[in-house]
């Protein structure tokens, strides 16, 4: 097996406006395998917007963006419907992505076994986050884009997530995430907006 | 004024509505244009004053 070091994401000169307000301009970054990039910046600096741009959701007003591999996206909003249980949520996305992952096993890793059949509307914020992170394990994708991943997670949840991220990085995966706290995994570089 | 047959009221009503609508559209366009020009000129003047202020 050859290990490619070609960049997974290469972006230069990204700019975005909201109305007439320039949110940011001239932002560039290169994400190589095993990189973990943390986006820093005050509230409203555009961290979420930059992540959405890298995910292909928001169109940049200027700049070049190339993404060489599939990615996982976990945003502020978990994407869980009120009637979906953690189990049915993961099953649905396994179906959509053509994944054959063992869902009970993922639920166990996420410490969601007891909440596995509780509908989304009754889940706590932390349980919703854990369900969303379960999607990361459905399918191996080299790029992870995580927006404020620690939000609503308790100490155990953070440790669990740090473990996933660390093993993802070891397996040549890469990560871009926005956060305010110190990261519990090796950070390659930080980008301040 | 021209003399019309039995339907004079309808004819005048049509042209009156037309005059009001078109005059209204013109007046609104003119007022909006004047307000925008005024604000822009004020902002630009303000901007120039601010930019040249510290240098002087």
């Amino acid at each position, binding site marked *: 097996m050859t290990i490619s070091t070609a960049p997974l994401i290469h972006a230069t000169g990204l700019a975005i406006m909201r109305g007439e307000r320039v949110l940011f301009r001239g932002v560039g970054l290169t994400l190589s395998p095993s990189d973990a990039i943390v986006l820093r910046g005050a509230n409203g600096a555009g961290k979420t917007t930059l992540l959405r741009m890298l995910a292909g959701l928001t169109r940049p007003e200027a700049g070049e963006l190339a993404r060489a591999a599939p990615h996982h996206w976990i945003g502020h909003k978990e994407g869980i419907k009120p009637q979906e249980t953690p189990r049915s949520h993961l099953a649905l996305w396994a179906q959509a992505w053509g994944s054959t992952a063992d869902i009970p096993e993922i639920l166990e890793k996420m410490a969601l076994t007891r909440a596995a059949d509780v509908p989304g509307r009754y889940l706590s914020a932390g349980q919703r986050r854990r369900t969303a992170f379960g999607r990361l394990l459905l399918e191996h994708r080299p790029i992870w884009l995580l927006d404020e991943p620690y939000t609503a997670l308790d100490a155990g949840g953070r440790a669990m997530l740090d473990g996933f991220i660390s093993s993802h990085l070891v397996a040549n995966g890469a990560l871009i995430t926005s956060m305010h706290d110190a990261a519990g995994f090796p950070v390659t570089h930080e980008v301040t907006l | 004024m021209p003399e019309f047959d039995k*339907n004079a009221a309808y004819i005048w009503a*049509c042209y009156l509505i037309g005059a009001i609508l078109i005059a209204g559209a013109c007046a609104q366009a003119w007022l909006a244009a004047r307000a925008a020009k005024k604000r822009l000129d004020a902002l630009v003047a303000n901007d120039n004053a601010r930019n040249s202020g510290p240098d002087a």
Partner: protein
Amino acid sequence: MWSYFANPHKFLSLSAWLAPLFYGAGTLCILWGLWQGLWIVPKDEYQGGDIMRVMFIHVPAAWLSMASYSALAVASFVWFIWRHELADIAAKAIAPLGAVWTALCLATGSIWGKPTWGTWWQWDDARMMSVLFLLFLFLGYMALRASMDSRQKAARAGAILAMVGAINVPLIKFSVDLFTSLHQPASVITADGPKMAAVYLTPLLVSGLGHALLFGGLVMTHMRTEIRQRRIARLTASALEG
């Protein structure tokens, strides 16, 4: 040519003299058409006597309502493909004016209908029905733009809706024609078509030209206002950022 018109500065200097020209020429044409229509041309007894003089405002308004929706659709299309900001500015300016002329067409048509058919609203008249739905398209477009929270989003949403509306207009027109042809055809108003005598046609065409010029002038004025407003917003935003 496109890039020439797409430049807001060029547009500002061009429209600075073109808009007044349009206003002047348009007003002259409309006044001449009015004078001809109200004083000079003989009344047509086949069209209910003097009431047909309403034609010199109703028919130009009808023409303009159709033309302005086409212009809105073209501007939206140009914006959607080439993202020329000026095309969006034009679309934004056209919509409310198109709605005004469309409303004028409906109002005068309704008033014309009362002595002719004995009713303020004739459901069997395909033209009136089509124009009514055109008014809804304009109002929907304006409401959608107004509810978007940034000008970029308003432009995109507006362009999508205007194009969806434009491809539906032929279908709406066809269905309305079919609906009305089931009942007796509206034969009283024959404003268009070769049946029209030249004595009516010339003032009608001149009135139509006048309304079009006035409309064009107003669109330019609104576009100038919008360009300035966007500059104001830009200056305010950069002042806030320091």
